[in-house]
């Protein structure tokens, strides 16, 4: 925002309340109400207004209080933001960022606790990023703001409490580049966003059992860095994809298919996926934990592709 006057933030409670999840803390004081704008609760309306502002020369950052409420704005994102460049034969550009928390939370039941990554990943014309560390979050957000296309950023709700190194100085994490978060030789576990933590824990458990896991963090769901994914699988010959969305038509099932197709000759086992159970999220905590990907489920899937069980 300091660098580019055209960048502004708008959404519910982003200003005076400092952000429902405190992501925009201090921005109103720093940049004033012209650039940090509290909206009514009208997701479709303010998202569309952001898109209009973007095609007319501004660079909006639209915060959705959570992705659950972005469902109301889907028409504007899918039918307008994603398609305007194409429909206008390249005359228009839509440099806008849509961001907010996504994914399972705690004790919130089904309308407030769901991963909607697949809905955005499905749409040509959008870019979709999902950081798994504070470092990546800063770098990806900056890249997203500078990008000339609409970028949807998925910030896992429970990750806001996570801590990690974030350099003060300027740096960018490129959109479309996956990251090897842990090199290994026996199996590639491919994931993104919050499940990275579960995967890293599983890798530790597996290490004790003599299994060397390579962890690929996608970071960007669209474009998808198939080069990094495939070269990892060609090295390890086995793959498990871990995701917190539902299994049907989800990010994991797509990545697993892509790996199966491109690396067929290199694979020593079928590709496994670990996802949310195929149910709406229940409120009860025991059930909601059982619905989600866990260390045990990842360890079991890795054991299957290694024929350890």
């Amino acid at each position, binding site marked *: 925002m300091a660098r580019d006057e055209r960048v502004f933030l708008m959404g*519910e*409670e982003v200003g*005076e*309340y400092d952000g*429902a999840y405190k992501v925009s803390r201090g921005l109103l004081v720093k940049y004033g109400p012209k650039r940090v704008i*509290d*909206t*009514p*609760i*009208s*997701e*479709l*309306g303010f998202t569309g207004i952001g898109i209009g502002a973007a095609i007319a020369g501004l660079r909006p950052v639209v915060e959705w209080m959570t992705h*659950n*409420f972005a*469902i*109301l704005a889907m028409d504007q994102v899918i039918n307008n933001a994603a398609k305007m460049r194409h429909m206008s034969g390249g005359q228009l550009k839509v440099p806008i960022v849509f961001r907010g928390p996504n994914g399972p*939370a*705690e*004790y*919130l*039941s*089904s*309308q*407030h606790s769901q991963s909607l990554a697949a809905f955005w990943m499905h749409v040509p014309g959008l870019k979709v990023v999902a950081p798994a560390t504070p470092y990546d979050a800063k770098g990806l957000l900056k890249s997203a703001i500078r990008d000339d296309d609409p970028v949807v950023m998925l910030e896992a709700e429970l990750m806001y409490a996570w801590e990690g190194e974030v350099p003060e100085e300027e740096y960018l994490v490129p959109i479309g580049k996956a990251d090897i978060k842990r090199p290994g030789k026996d199996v590639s576990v491919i994931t993104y966003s919050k499940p990275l933590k579960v995967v890293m824990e599983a890798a530790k458990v597996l290490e004790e059992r003599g299994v060397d896991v390579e962890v690929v963090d996608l970071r960007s769901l669209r474009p998808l860095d198939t080069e990094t994914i495939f070269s990892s699988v060609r090295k390890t010959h086995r793959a498990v994809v871990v995701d917190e969305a*539902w*299994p*049907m038509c989800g990010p994991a099932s797509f990545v697993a298919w892509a790996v199966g197709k491109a690396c067929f000759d290199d694979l020593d086992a079928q590709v496994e*996926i670990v996802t949310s*159970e*195929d*149910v*709406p999220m*229940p*409120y*009860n*905590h*025991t*059930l909601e934990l*059982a*619905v989600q990907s866990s260390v045990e489920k990842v360890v079991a899937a890795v054991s299957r592709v290694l024929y350890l069980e």
Partner: protein
Amino acid sequence: MGVKRPRTQRGERSDRDLYMKFLREMLLIRLFEEKAAQMYGLRKIGGFCHLYIGQEAVAVGSIAAIDLSKDYVVTAYRDHGHALACGMDPKVVMAELFGKVTGCSRGKGGSMHMFDVEKHFLGGNGIVGAQIPVGTGVAFAQKYQGTGGVTLVYFGDGAIHQGAFHEALNMAKIWELPVVYVCENNQWGMGTFWKKVSAVADLYKLGAAYDIPGVQVDGMDVRAVYEATGEAVSRAREGQPVLIEARTYRYKGHSMSDPAKYRTREELEEYKRQDPIGRLKTFMEEEGLLDEETFRSLYDEIQREVEEAVAFAEQSEEPALHTMYEDVYAGEDAIWRS
């Protein structure tokens, strides 16, 4: 229509039963919610828990004006009060808050998703404004089936700006649906003051664009809410949807995690002086309809009822793991398992 003032300034003895019912239900909601807050503090209840304390007169006064054998109630996530005012069993509501299988939604819904089909209470919606078209659809079914029933749809001052509200009102009007919209203007949508995000300060006027009459009522006065809803309901039964704006106030933060720093202590105190329970109690005492002893014993009785609800919730079973696959489809499990 316009701004409503309570018509009956003096209580009549014949109204005593009704006022006692108001008092009992408002007290039940108040004590239940205070207990829920305590249980939340003890982590027996998790997630978002939006308390209704301060707003009791709205649910109690309006729901008393309908006939739940044929009428319906639909609301949002701040739903414990409406649930109890519809006669839902406090035990079952508390058990749902605890996530137990004995809760009304089998532990799958929690605080924001109370439902009781038998009691004609249809939720419990967590998406701001989403219940407005849904409630309008319930009214559509009532008209279609010729039941003679109406639907009361509740939402906040924040929800009124959703497209869902405007689209629903338009269709309610063109199809002459038996629906009463109750906007509970508690003045804050999370940390946002309603005047800051509304093009008009008097929300009851928003019906005018759809030729739907609007009424403003003092939402801290249960009798006024009851009267205004009664009138609106009779018009709605004739096919004239009505919008009621009840001016009220929530004493607590938006949810249990909100310290409500955006408002002043004076503002809160001002509304506490108009407390709906206190006001009805004083009124009844002045009219000779209530004495302190009767009030005390009512209070104690309700306190016991709330304790029983907690004991029931505590002792109930957790839902078994396999129940996660249930209630997704009507028939057999059709869940994807790899």
